[in-house]
């Protein structure tokens, strides 16, 4: 019997190594796998590359990882936010590399990784600083920039419900980067609010098929997983 559920966040993160590239879902607070990120903070891996839309705020989550000097590079579209103090300090100190990617190119590059494409010609960013030094090409009268896939060793995703095969459904706009990051992680680790019996998720409405999911940990709505 295949059961992708693990009992604890620590178990879910087993094998996470120094130097890993980690994708983290979420937009605003919606869809952020907060407990999994806390788990990374506790786990200790350093020299990390973080791929996420933002670079964290306050003293928690991605910001805590950055503040602790555990992050070497951030690939994101919008690092500058109210409260992104830790990012700003490390970035200004030259201790943190930033690859700034337009949000749609970030999504498309993550999708390219998940779907095995070698590169894509995207129109976004053409003629701007963010395309400087990149290969460009006119195709059918329009200008495009060549962009490469963004892969991750580990994708951390928050979903709403799962079953033991790893099928996932999401909740409202908390879906955001979850489904595409789940496809791009070599190991995809998902925190969910509930794990339902196999066969109770409607097969028509599964958003992420279990094939993209390696481990699931249940984090009850308000609480934390067993330590």
């Amino acid at each position: 019997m295949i059961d992708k559920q693990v009992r604890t966040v620590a178990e879910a993160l087993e094998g996470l190594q120094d130097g890993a590239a980690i994708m983290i879902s979420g937009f605003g607070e919606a869809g952020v796998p907060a407990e999994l990120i806390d788990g990374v903070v506790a786990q200790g891996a350093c020299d990390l590359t973080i791929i996420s839309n933002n670079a964290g705020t306050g003293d928690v989550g991605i910001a805590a990882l950055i503040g602790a000097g555990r992050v070497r590079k951030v690939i994101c579209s919008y690092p500058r936010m109210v409260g992104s103090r830790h990012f700003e300090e490390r970035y200004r100190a030259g201790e943190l590399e930033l690859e700034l990617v337009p949000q749609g190119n970030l999504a498309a590059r993550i999708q390219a990784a998940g779907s095995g494409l070698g590169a894509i010609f995207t129109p976004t960013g053409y003629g701007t600083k963010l395309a400087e030094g990149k290969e460009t090409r006119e195709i059918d009268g329009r200008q495009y920039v060549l962009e490469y896939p963004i892969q991750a060793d580990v994708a951390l995703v928050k979903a709403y419900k799962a079953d033991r095969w790893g099928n996932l459904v999401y909740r409202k706009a908390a879906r955001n980067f979850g489904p595409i990051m789940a496809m791009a992680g070599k190991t995809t680790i998902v925190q969910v609010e509930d794990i339902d019996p196999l066969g109770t998720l409607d097969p028509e409405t599964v958003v992420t098929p279990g094939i993209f999911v390696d481990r699931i940990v249940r984090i009850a709505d308000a609480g934390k997983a067993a330590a």
Partner: protein
Amino acid sequence: MSAADTIQRLDKQQLARRVARDIPEGAYVNLGIGLPTQVANYLDTAGDYFLHSENGILGMGPAPDEDHIDWDLINAGKQPVTLLNGGCFFHHGDSFSMMRGGHIDICVMGAYQVSTRGDLANWHTGDPDAIPAVGGAMDLAIGAKQVFVMMNLLTKTGESKLVEHCTYPLTGLGCVSRIYSELGVIDLGPDGAKVVEMVDNLTLEHLREMTGVDLTMAQ
């Protein structure tokens, strides 16, 4: 009394209302963060409008009352919103495919500068000390069928944000089709800037003078 004193500049709410007037029923629209979001308040609620939010929502409704805030249902500005009957959710890949693929009819954005040919600068002031952040601006700029910029033509110190060539870092090339401003509506394109309408008591000559760019009246 100088001519300038009598110019009937639009305030922000009047500007939002003016933009809303040009959004036809049935349009798929992305309203940028900040002032453009206000346009939603002036869309005719008797009609069907389709508001897109790049974080995976189509059919966004107005802000909820305090008792119905759901932090899983936020717009791109991270404010709580609601979903209309007929709205739906999708992931970031599909959401930006909607934009990049030309499926969004109108995108309304703010700007630091816009050139007469429609180049847009709205993501970076060029300050070398600034932390760069782009979000979805570049994707929105080049994806929508029409990009409307909503901004004051003149800064507080009187400098024109409509320019011959942008000096701020570009967001996209030749992507803005129209500016809605406190002083009027201006179409942009390969042939330059054409004034579609001006507020009361403003002359083309005066507008040219204030902006310092070559303006003609649209036919």
